[in-house]
């Protein structure tokens, strides 16, 4: 028995834990052709916290997102975009 991944909430949950303004975190799912784009929006002051030095945090978020998508056998490509 395995649970189903919840990709938007996964990204939102981790992001809320990283930022100073968790109430400003939102994740919108935008369907583009055969790709789901997860648009992560955070407070302007928190951008660095979800991107990290040399993009380390953003890369880790994408790694975890891809692992979860693979786990859920989600056929649609899912990508993360970080917006202000």
């Amino acid at each position, binding site marked *: 028995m*395995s*649970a189903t*991944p919840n990709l938007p*909430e*996964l990204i939102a949950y981790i992001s809320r834990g990283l930022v100073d303004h968790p109430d400003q975190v939102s994740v919108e799912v935008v369907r583009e052709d055969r790709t789901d784009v997860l648009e992560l929006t955070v407070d302007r002051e928190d951008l660095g916290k979800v991107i990290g030095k040399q993009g*380390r945090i953003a890369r*880790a*978020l994408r*790694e975890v997102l891809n692992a979860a998508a693979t*786990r859920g056998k989600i056929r649609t490509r899912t990508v993360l975009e970080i917006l202000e």
Partner: protein
Amino acid sequence: MADKTEAERGQEYLTEILKLMGYQGDVTVHEGEDRLTLEVKGEDVGQLIGRKGATLDALQLLVAKMVTKGAETTRPIVVDVAGYREQRNGELLAMAAKKSDEAIKTGRVIALEPMSAHDRRVIHVALTDTPGVTTRSEGEGVNRRLMIVPTGPGAAS
């Protein structure tokens, strides 16, 4: 939330992240003096390791950032699955021994594949006391790799 210890918060964050990723795993805390280890146990959790531990490293970085947010000093946080960290260290030590022999035998600089800072450090420390070779890192970011450099007579520079 301020009343919870780092260990409790780390356990809570990782447990919720695993659930949202579609895993049913239990997170056990091992409190060490120099580190806090969060070990994942459960069905299929081996898939959480990823290529060369990439997924595990990503989880470790994110959970550590969530736990230490705003905190001044803290112990390193390690996320592990099924003893993977120890197994990987063993593989790295074996690779260090093999590649340093090769460097000494051929007199040539051996470039290892790009690795995380942790993995490079394990090999670097292992070879510090090995006569006939030194190590240095080259490249930036995710492409940073360790070079094993022979120092003995007849070594090509």
